[in-house]
């Protein structure tokens, strides 16, 4: 994978905004990405639904899926070893654990994006429960329908996923849509936006 272009998201997660990291941090980022490449166990599970599952028949999902011919539900993860490595680094080298954590987040987004390109061109972005005022606990419906324990992802009682470097999402088929900050509960106080950036990497619109 070409990692150079995820450097921007990584720096974004680390709070650099428009600034450039110094040479030490840059070196650390490449070191972390090389280690990630070695230890990650990326898995992507999905299912295509011709009929919209019942839990999506409400806002904001209806608007998001408006005009779509089908829906893809997906869960993906970097696997248990990445979580464990971050934990280890928290003790061994706090600075590196921060950088590694940011690299892992960006890496997961990238691998998921790449995988989704193989699913077709006419797709929306991954809409995750919690976006646009939706209820984060809707994630449990995705788990019921996909049973992603097969790829090692489970849901805690509080609807958070383990391993931590996992994502669950809803993708509309038959139209394209790009992420925006509209409807984000954090939009008014978001630290990324103050820096002129977004949490999903692209420039603020």
């Amino acid at each position, binding site marked *: 994978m070409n990692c150079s272009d995820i450097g921007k998201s990584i720096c974004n997660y680390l709070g*650099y905004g428009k600034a450039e990291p110094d040479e030490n*941090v840059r070196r650390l980022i490449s070191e972390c990405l090389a280690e990630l490449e070695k230890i990650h166990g990326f898995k992507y599970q999905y299912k295509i639904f011709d009929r919209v599952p019942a839990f999506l028949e409400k806002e904001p999902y209806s608007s998001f899926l408006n005009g779509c011919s089908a829906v893809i539900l997906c869960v993906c993860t970097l696997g248990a070893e990445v979580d464990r490595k971050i934990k*280890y680094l928290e003790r061994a080298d706090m*600075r590196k654990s921060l950088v590694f954590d940011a690299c892992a987040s960006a890496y997961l987004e990238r691998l998921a994006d790449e995988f989704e390109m193989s699913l077709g061109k006419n797709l929306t972005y991954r809409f995750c429960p919690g976006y646009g005022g939706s209820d*984060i606990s809707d994630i449990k419906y995705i788990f019921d329908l996909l049973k992603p324990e097969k790829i090692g992802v*489970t849901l805690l009682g509080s609807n958070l996923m383990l391993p931590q470097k996992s994502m669950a999402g809803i993708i509309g088929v038959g139209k394209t849509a790009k992420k925006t900050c509209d409807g984000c509960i954090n939009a008014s106080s978001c630290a990324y936006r103050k820096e002129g950036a977004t949490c999903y990497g692209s420039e603020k619109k």
Partner: protein
Amino acid sequence: MLRLGEKVIVLDGATGTQLEEKGLFGCPEDFNITAPEKIREIHRSYAAADIILTNTFGLNAIKYRGEFSVKEVALKAIESARSAKKSVFFNIGPTGAMLKPLGALSFDEAYSAFAELAEITKDLVDGYFVETFSDLYEAKACVLALKEHSKKPIYVTMTFDSSGRTLTGSTPEIVANTLEGLGVDALGVNCSLGPKEMESVVKRLLAASDVPVIVEPNRGLPVLKNGKTVYELGVDEFDFYIGKFVEMGVGVVGGCCGTTPEFINAISKYSGREVVRRAVAKKTAVNSATKLVGIEGVKICGERLNPTGKKKLKEALLNEDYDYLIDEAVKQQEAGADILDVNVGIPKIDEPRVMAEVLRRLQEYVDLPLQIDSSDKEAIEAGARYYNGIPIINSVNGEERVMNSVFPIAKKYGAVVLGLTMDDNGVPETAEERFSIAKRIVERAESYGIPRHKIMIDTLVLTASAEQKLVKETVEALRLVKTLGVKTALGVSNVSFGLPNRGLLNKTFLAMAMTCGLNMPILNPLDGEMTGAVRAYAVLSGEDENSERYIEAYKDFTPAAANSTAATRREDKSASTLYDCVKKGIKGRAAELCEEELQRSEPMEIVDGVLIKALDDVGKLYESGKLFLPQLVSSAEAAKAAFEVIGKRLPKNGDGDGLVVLATVKGDVHDIGKNIVKVVLESHGYSVLDLGKDVPKEKVVEAYIGHKPFAIGLSALMTTTVISMEETIKALRSVGCSSKIFVGGAVLNEETAREIGADYYTKDAIEFAKVLNALKNKD
């Protein structure tokens, strides 16, 4: 009659695929009761196989969500499987939940679910087929449950991905070493991959263990057609690979997802063929879930997790402050240890409970295999049971009583045992006498079914100051016990006790012992001279080919850094003052420069004049966007290292004074923000009690009552967990909490903080420290 290991055994094919063919959709296990005739038809269609598996893959109390009781379904399933008139193995799949710490399920809960199945079926089936497990720890729970309730054969297959690892990161070698250790009858691989993709895993399993190997591939990799997953591999190609596996030495073959009676009919021709013999070199190896360490050449066992003579560790164990132990473990791994010794034996401690808990906590962070060091039989068993892997047990000796109590545990859990060459009469003087005890230990172990490669011998180091003449006996004994075909260990640093310049004696003795065949010195890995001697020996003995590891360790070597454990970083040299060190975030030099500074200044002068000033300057740069998170954390870590030095010179603070309790609230697992707060507060000289993440409110209240801290910091990242933050605050208020309550996290702001009853909201770690400092000064 099945002749496992001698004649090839053929298993049946997929059940799920056949159910769908027959129009049965829904809970597959329930069809045992609602459509028994169809289930029998499926079983009979596989009658060409030697073993029929019951239709019970999803049947366990944790996973099964059908209409009936587990027992009803199990009994019916066995009855139906019998209709094919072949051997019937009870099929057990995983619980579907992940075990802690990767998920929420406890080892004991998983064990109980499998034990229930064993209890119901033990007299009704011919064996157990445990399949499609992706977590070795869960497989261990299952095998123990079966072994402790039934005497029937146990076959276990795990599922690997194309990179040759299980979901939880275990390699075929780790799986083989662990399952062989637990005494399964056959082990192997199934599901996820087609036969072609499985080949390398099969090869590795065959080379790693002489237990019969099972291969049960899917019908190739699935392809997506019209939104449905279908398998398209042809019978001939499937058969070709199965034939190849049989030639490689596989003893049990079958089909997983997508296979049909046609496939099993085709491969049934291998049934009854002689299993191809293979020579497997027996190696002494220990493993965690993700790391296998072969005891070859010289491997370092870190000795620092042993409370003997270590006041801080004793205190930590008594206070159940396991964070201290984790830090010690991580330090040793960083310094180059291969295995870690774990001893929690102090008076008035519940050793079995603490041993199990400490092992559980350590393996969340450190992937090195562990050595259970105890003289308490119960503690050894608790450790071996809850350890996720194959540990070393330290130790037995030549005393009958000790051997008879420890060997059964070692056998049951597959542990490697360290045997000390002493007995009721103490440590014998001569090498020959020690050798004869070693021989006795090895023979007695063999009578318990423990092979030689599972035994290591420690010929015992006596101090040169008291028993000078006996030092060479220890070394000579090493040479002798090697002839028994076992590996050796020594606690090397005992040799120098009572003499000056101990390091020199230790290093020299280590070199002598390695030359005579020492495999595992137990030493302090933070002593760079000792680990260095091991690295150097690996070069000189030819084990470190092309000196690769040596060069990697010393490529940045400078004579000045000779005594430090890690090579000094380039940037370290640019900081000449403590202030610079903190500002530039150079942790390695901070402690050293602080020591120097203490020669000249009073501790408090350094705190106020240098450390706080540097941290303030860093904080300002951070707030103005001129310096960023990674640097902020480095500075905090450097300041923390300096504070640790100063802390030793300052009188201890009163109870709770300067203590901050931190927790990520119940339900939330994101703790990176809390961890940053922790290191920044520590860098300002606060002591932090970190309760971790997903912390129930009761635990926070308990910490408040027990410590009466100056402040409590709660973190939550998700809107959903802010509720649990509010509940925690309520619980604290209800016990009259007088500590200042701080909250933080991505979804919080001033307003929410007020609403949920917090005293302060701080947007980041720097602000947290600032507010705390201001409050302290007011006091």
